[in-house]
């Protein structure tokens, strides 16, 4: 069996989590040359409401392209947490936005929390980068790709004018998470 | 007391699926008020739509409701009306549904002058599928399939309806909220095909791409471009440049289709 790592990003529509998933997949498959499949929710629920983006990363070709048992999950809102923080593997991890997910669903996995939206607003000054902060945090949490790969993938995705902003956001997310992990 | 919309809405169906700021909700409220004003009986009224965001409207309304296939509302509605001419039949749906894929059924319903009221929500875009241009997207505007600006001229939907023979044609906008029900009431009372085009907004797939900062911006534009027909009579061509006429644009009396058919039945059976 090819070994696979499954990550799910979830939150409100418009929070940029699809993009976060795509960037992670690019980091893994384009930059690191491994295998990755990204998919996302479509349909009425994708427009407003909760949405999700899944990335499966592996060392060989990925057959089944949807999540089976999720290794790591992000939930940016309570609605997303309720809907998508499911099927997390025993020993897996769930990262939630501490301000927007007051009641993280409990299970046989570790729960972490970070004030992601607040960091975007207060520390970076732009809510729009919350997804990149989240991405940095998830990479820090999971080590599924190298820190640099994630950064490179982020920078490849944004226009010149926004590179610094995103670099900062990514680092913030990464470091804040490492702090939490360091306890 | 606040207006009692709930009595016309199916229990438990709100909130609706439309995006924040989507004008379809404003139009639905107007439609509810209009049906209320006309005192339509729920059991004796059918509301028929195609597919699209606008076409989701019937699902909320506590009447006989028929959510058909993309573009086919007018044709299904024709079947309902011919089968039960005593029913009030209302069509609703988007610009893409009614005039792009559904154009043929639309113009033929106009030609037949069958007694129904077609509420056409023109938000200049295919909302449901994520913002491809429609046959009423203004030239040059941006949509997901017009990355370099829309090369297609837009229909003047009211003009199309008149050209096709509709006997009542009116237009207003989602900004002119109180005019919505007034015109729909006139449409319902009119014996024959009544088309009410309502210029509407889709902040999600049209507004953002075309640099509207907010829904309110879009509303303001609707306010700005609207010129009542009466006022237009006194304006110059230059003044009317870029404007859209609102109000009752056309009204005439012609035999209604089901009545004509009823006469045939009477004649044949009498003979």
């Amino acid at each position, binding site marked *: 069996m090819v070994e696979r790592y499954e990550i799910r990003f979830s939150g409100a529509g418009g929070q940029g989590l699809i993009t976060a998933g795509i960037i992670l997949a690019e980091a893994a498959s384009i930059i690191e040359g491994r295998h990755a499949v990204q998919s996302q929710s479509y349909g009425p629920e994708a427009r407003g409401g909760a949405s999700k983006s899944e990335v499966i990363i592996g060392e060989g070709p990925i057959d089944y392209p949807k999540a089976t048992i999720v290794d790591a999950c992000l939930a940016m809102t309570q609605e997303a947490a309720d809907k998508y923080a499911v099927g997390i593997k025993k020993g897996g991890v769930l990262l939630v936005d501490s301000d927007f997910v007051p009641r993280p669903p409990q299970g046989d996995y570790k729960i972490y929390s970070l004030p992601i939206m607040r960091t975007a607003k207060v520390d970076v000054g732009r809510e729009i980068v919350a997804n990149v902060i989240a991405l940095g945090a998830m990479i820090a949490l999971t080590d599924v790709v190298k820190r640099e790969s994630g950064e490179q993938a982020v920078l490849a995705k944004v226009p010149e004018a926004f590179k610094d902003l995103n670099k900062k956001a990514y680092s913030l997310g990464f470091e804040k998470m490492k702090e939490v992990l360091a306890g | 007391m*606040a*207006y009692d919309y709930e009595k016309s809405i199916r229990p438990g169906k709100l909130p*609706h699926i439309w995006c924040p700021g*989507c004008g379809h*909700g*404003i139009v639905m*409220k107007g439609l509810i008020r209009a049906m209320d004003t006309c005192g339509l009986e729920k059991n004796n009224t059918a509301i028929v739509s195609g597919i699209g965001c606008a076409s989701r409207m019937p699902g909320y309304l506590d009447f006989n409701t028929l959510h058909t296939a993309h573009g086919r509302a007018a044709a299904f509605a024709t079947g309902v009306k011919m089968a039960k001419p005593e029913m009030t039949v209302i069509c609703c749906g988007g610009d893409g549904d009614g005039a792009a894929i559904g154009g043929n059924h639309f113009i033929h319903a106009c030609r037949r002058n069958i007694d129904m009221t077609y509420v056409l929500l023109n938000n200049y875009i295919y909302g449901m599928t994520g913002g491809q241009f429609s046959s009423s997207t203004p030239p040059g505007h941006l949509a997901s399939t017009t990355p370099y600006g829309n090369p297609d001229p837009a229909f003047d939907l009211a003009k199309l309806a008149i050209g096709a023979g509709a006997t009542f044609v009116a237009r207003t906008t989602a900004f002119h909220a109180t005019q919505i029900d007034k015109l729909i009431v006139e449409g319902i009372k009119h014996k024959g095909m009544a088309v009410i085009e309502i210029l509407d907004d889709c902040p999600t797939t049209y507004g953002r791409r075309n640099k509207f900062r907010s829904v309110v911006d879009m509303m303001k534009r609707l306010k700005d471009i609207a010129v009542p027909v009466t006022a237009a009579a006194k304006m110059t061509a230059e003044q009317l440049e870029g404007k859209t006429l609102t109000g009752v644009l056309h009204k005439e009396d012609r035999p209604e289709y089901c009545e004509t058919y009823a006469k045939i039945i009477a004649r044949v059976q009498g003979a």
Partner: protein
Amino acid sequence: MSAKAEIEIIDAYCKGCSICVEFCPTKVLEMDAFVVKVVNADACIACNQCELRCPDFAIKVHKL
């Protein structure tokens, strides 16, 4: 100045589009994160603009 109407907001329906806020002539309403709230009840002149224009059936003007 006393309120001419009581404003009811149905949080579960409100999608926070802020149309009502913008159209209220007397600044009775304000956005609060994702939903609207009444911040200046007394100023309400019962003009009904907010109810009329809310696309989400989320606001009701009960005239006093």
